[in-house]
C-alpha cells in the first residue's frame, strides 16, 4: 500500500514535467536563445509543429541529426538532446558553432528546397 502511494505521489509530481516536455515542442514559437551569452538579434521565429506540417517533415532526424567522426549517422536522431550539447560557442574542427549550426541547418535546407526564410530578418523578426 505504501509503495503504491509512493508511485502515485511520484507520478503526480512528474506529470507537470511530462506535460511540459510534450507541450514545449507543440507550443514552441522560437529558438531558445538563452544559451547565448550576449545575443545580438531577436530569437529566431520557429513554430516547430507548424513548420513540420508545412514542410512535410515526418522524421525527427531531418533536423535532429547525429554525426560521428564527422559523418552523418543514418537512422539515428538526437531530439532527446539539446543542440548546445554538441555545438559549442565556437567551431570545433568540422563541427560548426551553435549559431552556425542553426543557420546552416535551417537556411541550408530552405535554399535547397527553394522555400522558407533565408534572409537574416525573416527569422530574426523584430
Amino acid at each position, binding site marked *: 500500500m505504501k509503495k503504491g502511494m509512493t508511485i502515485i505521489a511520484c507520478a503526480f509530481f512528474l506529470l507537470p514535467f511530462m506535460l511540459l516536455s510534450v507541450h514545449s515542442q507543440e507550443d514552441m514559437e522560437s529558438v531558445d536563445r538563452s544559451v547565448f551569452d*550576449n545575443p*545580438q*538579434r531577436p530569437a529566431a521565429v520557429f513554430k516547430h509543429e507548424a513548420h513540420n506540417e508545412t514542410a512535410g517533415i515526418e522524421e525527427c532526424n531531418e533536423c535532429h541529426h547525429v554525426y560521428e567522426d564527422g559523418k552523418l549517422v543514418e537512422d539515428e536522431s538526437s531530439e532527446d538532446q539539446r543542440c548546445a550539447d554538441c555545438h559549442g560557442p565556437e*567551431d570545433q574542427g568540422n563541427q560548426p558553432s551553435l*549559431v*552556425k549550426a542553426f*543557420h*546552416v541547418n535551417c*537556411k541550408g535546407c530552405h*535554399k535547397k528546397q*527553394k*522555400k522558407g526564410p*533565408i*534572409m*537574416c*530578418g*525573416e527569422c530574426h*523578426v*523584430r
Partner: protein
Amino acid sequence: MHDLYQFVSGPLAWVAFILFVGGSLYRMIAMLVEVKKKEPFIFTYMSLKYSLRSIVHWMTPFATYNWRRKPVLTVVTFAFHICLFVSPIFLLAHVTLWDESWDISWWTLPDGVADVMTLIVIAGCVFFLLRRLTQPEVQFVTFPSDYFILAIVAAPFVTGFLAYHQWFGYPMVMVLHVLAGEVMLVAIPFTRLSHMIYSPFTRAYMGSEFGVIRKSKDF
C-alpha cells in the same frame, strides 16, 4: 523574393567582387604605366620615408595645416571614413555570411554600435551634400555626377539601416541593400570613389616631391 535574393547574394556578388578587385588592380597598374610613360622622372625621387611621413600626417586628425584650418570638415571626414570602413567590415551579420560561405570569421562590433556608426555615415553624406550645394569652392569642382556618386555611397547605409530595423517592407529592402552594396563596390574603381585606391599614391608622390625636391613639408 527567394530567387531574387539568391541571385543578388550569389552570382551578382561574385560579379561585384571580381569587378571591384580586378578594376582596382587595373586602375592602379594603368596609372603606374602612365606615369612611367609620361613622367618617369618621378620614380627617381620617390622616397619611402617622405611617403610615409605624408601618409601618416594626413591620416592623423589635425596633424596638417589644412586639417586645422577646417576643423568641422576634419571631424566629419574622419568620422565618416572610419565608420564607412569599420561598420560594414566588422558587422556581425556580414561576418556571419562570410563564416557560413567560407569558414572565415573575425572580430565583430555589437549591433548597437554598428547602428550608430551607420547613422554617422548617413549624416556625413548629408553634410557633404550640403557642402557641395553651398560652398563656392566646392561647387567649382562639382560635376552633376558627384551627386550621383554621393547617392551610391549613401544607399548601402540607408538600406542597411532600414533592413536592420526591418522598416518599410523587409525582404525588398534587404535585396536593395545587397544591390546597393554591389553597385558601390563596382563604382569604387570606375568613379571618383577611386580616391580609395589612388590616395596613398597621391600622398606618397606629394610627400616625396616636397621632402626630396622642395625640402619642405606637405602638411
